């Protein structure tokens, strides 16, 4: 087991810098997810940890051992590839045993260990089959067993679920999560699917353009995103321009909300991130942002509304469906916000004012 420290890591392809100066600490035994849109450098970073990409600057340490120049075969890493990379010329058992054979494990221990992980991943009954006779989910299990059987210090997973269908993805998600917790192995997981990241991770690092935007628990990232990019990338949100004055958010049409965390914030223009469920639709209230219902979609549990504000912007709102059908297109409504939930960013969108305020109070 190891913690992983990434210090000022740099990746360049020729003159093109893909990752400038990246820092991260991955705690022992946690499942750490690199999440970001495609091309953000998450797989590049993973492959730097694995040793398949060179490192142009900075250090990567497992515990306190620098591994920059260590051969990939010496790093004691378990890796699960996007396409599983199952050896098609070896049986399921031989695939799983491959790493142990390289470690010159004795015959009996080899069989015992291999059996243990074949059983753990519930693929014992396929042990003597060739991999091409197995389904994607089963191949994924082989890949996991093969990676875990060598008792690696670190487990790396590169979009392991992206080749599976939706149902299998959910199933394998929990298999991965449980196995990781049972074995207690430090895991770096790469995905572009935010729901998958939320469901599986202890810690998520949201990446964009080779830079980590926000590191935190799924809850922190959703509730208190560090910047507008993270707010919009994780979940859905409405970004509305407003002003902060004397601890209050003042919306364009005059609606004001007092927020404790903004008490000491200077007067400035801001961007409010208000998630669809952070609005409250009022029909009769005096206070609120004025809007008109444009359309609604009934989804059973919830109803989605699209509401046009006076300045022409559209906002999305989700409310629990009510028994009566009372909001119709064209109806005027007042929108209030759940002030303890919303986030306020500076004009540039790179600082969360609510978040920094909270920290000051603590």
């Amino acid at each position, binding site marked *: 087991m190891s913690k992983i420290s990434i210090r000022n890591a740099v990746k360049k392809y020729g003159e093109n810098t893909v990752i400038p100066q990246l820092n991260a600490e991955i705690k022992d035994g946690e499942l750490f997810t690199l999440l970001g849109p495609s091309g953000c450098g998450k797989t590049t970073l993973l492959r730097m940890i*694995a*040793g398949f990409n060179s490192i142009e600057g900075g250090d990567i340490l497992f515990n306190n051992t620098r591994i920059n120049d260590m051969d990939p*075969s010496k790093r004691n890493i378990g890796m699960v*590839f*996007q*396409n599983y990379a199952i050896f098609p*010329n070896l049986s399921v058992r031989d695939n799983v045993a*491959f*790493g142990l054979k390289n470690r010159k494990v004795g015959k009996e221990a080899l069989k015992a260990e291999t059996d243990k992980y074949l059983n753990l991943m519930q693929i014992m009954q396929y042990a003597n089959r060739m991999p091409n006779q197995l389904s994607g989910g089963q191949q994924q299990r082989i890949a996991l067993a093969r990676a875990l059987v*060598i008792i690696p210090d670190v487990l790396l997973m590169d979009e392991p679920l992206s080749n599976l269908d939706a149902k299998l993805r959910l199933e394998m998600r929990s298999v991965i999560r449980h196995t990781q917790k049972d074995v207690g192995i430090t895991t770096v997981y790469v995905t572009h699917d935010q729901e998958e990241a939320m469901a599986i991770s202890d810690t998520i690092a949201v990446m964009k353009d080779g830079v980590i935007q926000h590191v935190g628990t799924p809850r922190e990232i959703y509730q208190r995103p560090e910047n507008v990019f993270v707010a919009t990338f994780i979940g859905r949100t409405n970004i509305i321009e407003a002003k902060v004055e004397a601890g209050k958010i003042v919306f364009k049409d005059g609606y004001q909300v007092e927020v404790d965390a903004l008490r000491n914030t200077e007067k400035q223009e801001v961007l409010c991130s208000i998630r669809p469920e952070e609005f409250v639709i009022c029909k009769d209230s005096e206070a609120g942002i004025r809007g008109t219902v444009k359309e609604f979609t009934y989804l059973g549990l919830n109803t989605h509304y699209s509401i046009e504000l006076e300045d022409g912007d559209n906002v999305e709102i989700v409310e629990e469906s009510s028994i009566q059908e009372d909001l119709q297109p064209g109806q005027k409504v007042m929108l209030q916000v759940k002030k303890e939930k919303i986030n306020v960013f500076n004009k540039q969108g790179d600082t969360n004012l609510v978040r920094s305020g909270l920290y000051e109070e603590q």
Partner: protein
Amino acid sequence: MKNNNKFRLDVWGFITLAAIALYLLFLIYPMAYLMKQSVVDSETGAITMANFAKFLSKSYYFDTLFNSFKVSIAATLLSLAIGTPLAYLFSVFKIKGKSILNILIIVASMSAPFIGAYSWILLLGRSGVVTKILKNIGITIPPIYGFAGIVLVMTLQLFPLVFLYAKGALKNIDNSLIEASENLGCSGFRCFMRVVVPLIMPTLLAAGLLVFMRSFADFGTPMLIGEGYRTFPVVLYTEFINEVSGNDGFAAAIAVIAIAVTTVVFLAQKYVSNKKSFSLNALHPMEEKNPRKGISWIVHLFSYLIVGVAVIPQCYVIYTSFKKTEGKIFTSGYSLDSYITAFGKLGKSIQNTIIIPVLALIVIVILAVVIAYLVVRRRNALTNAVDILSMIPYIVPGTVLGIALLNGFNKKPLLISGTMLIMVIALIIRRLPYTIRSSVAILQQIPMSIEEAAISLGASKMKAFFRITVPMMSAGILAGAILSWVTMISELSTAIILYTGKTKTLTVAVYTEVVRGNYGTAAALSTILTFLTVVSLLVFNRFNKGKDLSL
């Protein structure tokens, strides 16, 4: 990890340098020597363009260039026109006896072309069997000699290449593309012309180039059936034979021109196909369906007719090999005399036909795997050089390579002409590009992540390559090796230059027997050759287990 693509003097670096050294010695040196010969006057040592001037100014020589072009282009177009639809029919329809037809097509393509030529002479020549029968019922057919004959033989010999290439490419067309086109109202022949052919165009271009190169370089066919219609390789050969008796430099000049022409064609093809390249990957390949009642008989007739015509020469040769001969003339009745003569006089050549290609094959397979690895996994300037060097033989006609090797290695300290070694080297150089290409293609299909998985599980790079990658490649390599073997045993144009009494191969023996008019012995020998080919292909099929073959 250190950068894989930077040159380092490790095992692979050493192999890279060794490969370059070998190519410099056995390919670049003889070719350079040939070029030097073409511009240096052997008596005065002065640089002269006289040889080129002689070729270009005399229409006797210069016209052969046009003749070759005409023949090659006609053969290429006809091969494409026959091979492509046939491959399509084989891919979309269930045809009775398809597996046998498949083997027959390959057998037809694998025989030495000049055997086809001489067999067609026996059938349709001046005193050919068919000609006589038709004459008796009052029909005169146009003469088989010259342009028409050469094109006929080459087309029948080479359309199978197009067929095999196209069939492979058709496997990669997803059925949904065809369904989409039908859904949009384009089906049947229109769908074939407007959807299928454009989709496999990159492959057709590659196949077309191969057919062009083969027909341009083919020496045996025009020599036998061309008569007055002289093509480039024929002039080259005859001038070279003259050159041995004292006339210098001119053959070398012709060889240089030949290379220049093939280079231009090669580059033109590359230019066009680069513009048209895209990749296909079928999740659901086209399924074979039963043809509709109305067109079923057309499909069958077309398939059987083409395959039938393609194998006629083989069959007729086999038939004549069992005929009784008196001296050089076939008489009525059957006997095994031809075989007895064949084994008695030329048993050695049968031995050579096994030994020389086997030696070459071992070297080819090893080199091809290693070079493919360098080219795919270790890209750098030097491995690029190996890649380019390995492709040169693709554009060098066999006769030219034969002459270059013979001239380059006929004096000390590089005296190997006349030995078996030079024959082996020639085969290696000629066949290596194909095996490298197919190995590269196989290796590119193996995702790097598989090797990375092995490495991350603690295997060294060498071990990952030999334990995982090579076994994964092995089926493809073996199949490629058997095909190489089949092409090597029927190789003529280099062997005809390099052979001596001791290193005569079957194809050379057949050729010399045909030239001497010993048709019986020639037929027996070529039957033995066909037999070897068929057995090899059956072995190939066992290893390849129904997969497609690529050349």
